[in-house]
């Protein structure tokens, strides 16, 4: 850089300095120093950009935090919705169970006083097993009769805590002493063989017995396990055979596959005798 250019550059810088000095002495019509207004005008774009960037960053942060809060709130609401749906399903199931209990209690007179309801939690009909849970504080003994909607469903074979394992009456090892409601025909209802699952075989029914298809059979109480008078099933076939007894089959009154609730007849001796009958 030549001396002349250097001189001009220095002089120009001095001019700028002198202009600033002059601006520091002059006030604008509003009473403000001109230098201050220049400074403000020079800094204003930077402040504007800074403000815009700050607003953008703040807006972005707010948006991200809001979105995060929204996602969290959405997840919470989804969980609540799922919980509510589950509660709704449970309540609906409870309502159905309640209706089943009422239906079952209304089925047999005098049952409400001592019956202990239990919720079915598991069923394995191929093995003739059903698991039910009773309320805390109830102790269900083995060989307690279990009744579901329609009639007898089985007997308790094991009880542990609140859980009770029930052997359903369609199990081949099950045997229930039955009779017709009028007591004229006696028999023994055993579980079906694998050839006809889900049915009962009524054994030891004499050939001369007056038993027709559609007749109802109830417990007789002769087995010492089940109280008398509980519906067991309905006759579906009556055949003669070469044996001295009729070949009778019945369908169970209770459906283990759909039973939600079972009633354990804990300490129940049976329905009260009809009015006017002799003891």
């Amino acid at each position, binding site marked *: 850089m030549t001396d002349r250019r250097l001189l001009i550059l220095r002089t120009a810088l001095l001019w700028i300095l002198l*202009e600033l000095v002059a601006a520091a*002495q002059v006030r604008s019509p509003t009473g403000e120093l*001109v230098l201050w207004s220049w400074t403000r005008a020079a800094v204003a774009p930077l402040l504007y950009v800074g403000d815009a960037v700050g607003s953008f960053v703040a807006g972005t942060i707010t948006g991200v935090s809001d979105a995060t809060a929204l996602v969290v709130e959405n997840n919470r609401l989804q969980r609540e919705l799922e919980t509510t749906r589950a509660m709704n399903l449970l309540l609906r199931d409870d309502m159905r169970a309640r209706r089943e209990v009422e239906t079952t209690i209304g089925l047999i007179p005098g049952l409400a006083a001592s019956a202990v309801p239990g919720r079915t939690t598991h069923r394995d009909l191929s093995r003739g097993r059903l698991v039910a849970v009773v309320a805390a504080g109830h102790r269900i003994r083995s060989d307690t009769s279990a009744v579901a909607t329609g009639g007898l469903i089985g007997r308790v074979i094991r009880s542990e805590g609140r859980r009770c394992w029930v052997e359903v009456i369609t199990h081949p090892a099950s045997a229930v002493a039955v009779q017709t409601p009028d007591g004229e025909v006696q028999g023994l209802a055993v579980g079906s063989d694998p050839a006809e699952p889900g049915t009962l075989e009524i054994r030891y029914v004499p050939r001369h017995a007056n038993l027709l298809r559609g007749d109802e059979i109830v417990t007789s109480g002769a087995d010492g396990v089940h109280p008398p008078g509980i519906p067991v099933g309905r006759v579906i076939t009556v055949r003669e055979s070469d044996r001295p007894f009729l070949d009778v089959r019945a369908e169970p009154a209770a459906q283990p596959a759909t039973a939600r609730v079972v009633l354990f007849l804990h300490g129940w001796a049976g329905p009260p005798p009809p009015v006017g009958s002799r003891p």
Partner: protein
Amino acid sequence: MMKVVFLAAATLAAQVALGLPSSPPWMAAVLLPVVFITAPPLLQSERRWPHFALLLGLAWDLMLEPVVGPGAIAWSAAAVVISLVVPLVADRSPRAWLAFGALGAALVIVVREVALLPLGMTGGLSWRSAAVSVSLTAGWCCLIGWIIALDLPSRWLRYRSRKLR
């Protein structure tokens, strides 16, 4: 250097005196210190005179202007421009003094107005007053150039030598 400073101070004092209420109004239009920014390049003196022009402008501002700064800018700007233009011209006669005096005065007036423009203090300049000021200042510079061209000391010495002979 001290002589120049003294002359500048005397010029500024004279400038103040020209603006006294008792003097004619046109006398205040003469920019007497312009001769200090036209003389150095025309006389080919040292090149530090733009700084001197700056100091001269500051002194002008302190004595005559309401704001310190624009005058210094104007005077130094005029000095810089004249320093760039004078080497382009070979003429050093009073006519050159006249022209560069007019140029310096015009530059001082215009640059001062430009420097006052951002401060919101312009509005006092008219073409007529500027023309009067430029003309009178050019005449003043021409007078100085003519006096210098006369070379009175050498004439006086020659006269004395003739008389003593």
